[in-house]
């Protein structure tokens, strides 16, 4: 594959991936069936992972696929399937207080535009990736040497999350007897 061709294809791939990511993100909001929304959310996550790949951020792409698609999306799907009214596929997705929602959305848009206007569109620095392309190695090296203590503390944090999740989930089981059909 010649260099110039790859440079030609690169923006094309970027726009295609952006279209998939943003399009499925819009579908998440628009879809009437909340389960389908969650599936489109997975597609959107995939688009972001592919965008990470185009930026040579392979590790972030792996994190995106493993954590966001593999864990968070599954958690969302489970949460949807656990809802009591799942037997009604058209669970109401719109909120009744749409005026307040529109107000908050407009406010968010205003602040986003305000913040983006503060940025200068050009920067003297060229975007850089780690030399050699593979950023995972220096990341792992730093994690194992300079940031060893934070690395070990992460495991404590994960254990705390595990214990907290189990305690919260078990308490819910004791107080409220949810309908158990399966």
């Amino acid at each position, binding site marked *: 594959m010649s260099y110039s061709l790859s440079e030609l294809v690169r923006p094309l791939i970027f726009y295609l991936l952006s279209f998939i990511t943003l399009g499925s993100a819009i579908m998440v909001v628009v879809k009437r069936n909340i389960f389908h929304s969650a599936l489109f959310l997975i597609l959107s996550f995939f688009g972001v992972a592919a965008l990470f790949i185009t930026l040579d951020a392979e590790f972030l792409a792996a994190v995106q696929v493993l954590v966001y698609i593999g864990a968070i999306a599954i958690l969302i799907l489970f949460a949807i399937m656990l809802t009591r009214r799942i037997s009604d*596929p058209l669970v109401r997705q719109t909120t009744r207080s749409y005026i307040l929602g529109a107000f908050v959305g407009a406010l968010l848009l205003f602040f986003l535009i305000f913040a983006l206007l503060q940025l200068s569109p050009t920067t003297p620095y060229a975007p850089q990736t780690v030399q050699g392309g593979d950023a995972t190695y220096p990341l792992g090296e730093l994690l*194992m040497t300079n940031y060893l203590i934070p*690395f070990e503390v992460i495991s404590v944090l*994960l254990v705390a999350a*595990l214990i907290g999740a*189990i305690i919260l989930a*078990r308490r819910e089981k004791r107080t409220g007897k949810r309908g158990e059909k399966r």
Partner: protein
Amino acid sequence: MFSDYAVVGITIIVSLGFVAVAIVSAWLVRPKRPSKLKQSTYECGEKPVGSGWVQYNVRFYLFALAFVVFDVEIIFLFAWAVVFKDLGIFGLIEMAVFIFILLFGLIWAWRKGALKWV
């Protein structure tokens, strides 16, 4: 590198094309005589009972929560595996400590019966 993933993109495009060709060609060739029985949900030849949209057991969520924790652990294993050869025994000890702490959490969950299907 970015271009290494071209094969992934080609695989996705080919697989999407394969499904599209299979569905469209079947749609063109097949006779269309729908009946109520034909349009019912296929459940391994059995008569479908009730709706497919049933509420699942809350217990699934507990397993999903535990899964997330170990899923995040895998991420750090990835970063560690890349540098493992150069770190040698020191890296092994570091990861052993990391996994041991998480193992403690797993054993705690086990003792609490969180892994049991009731």
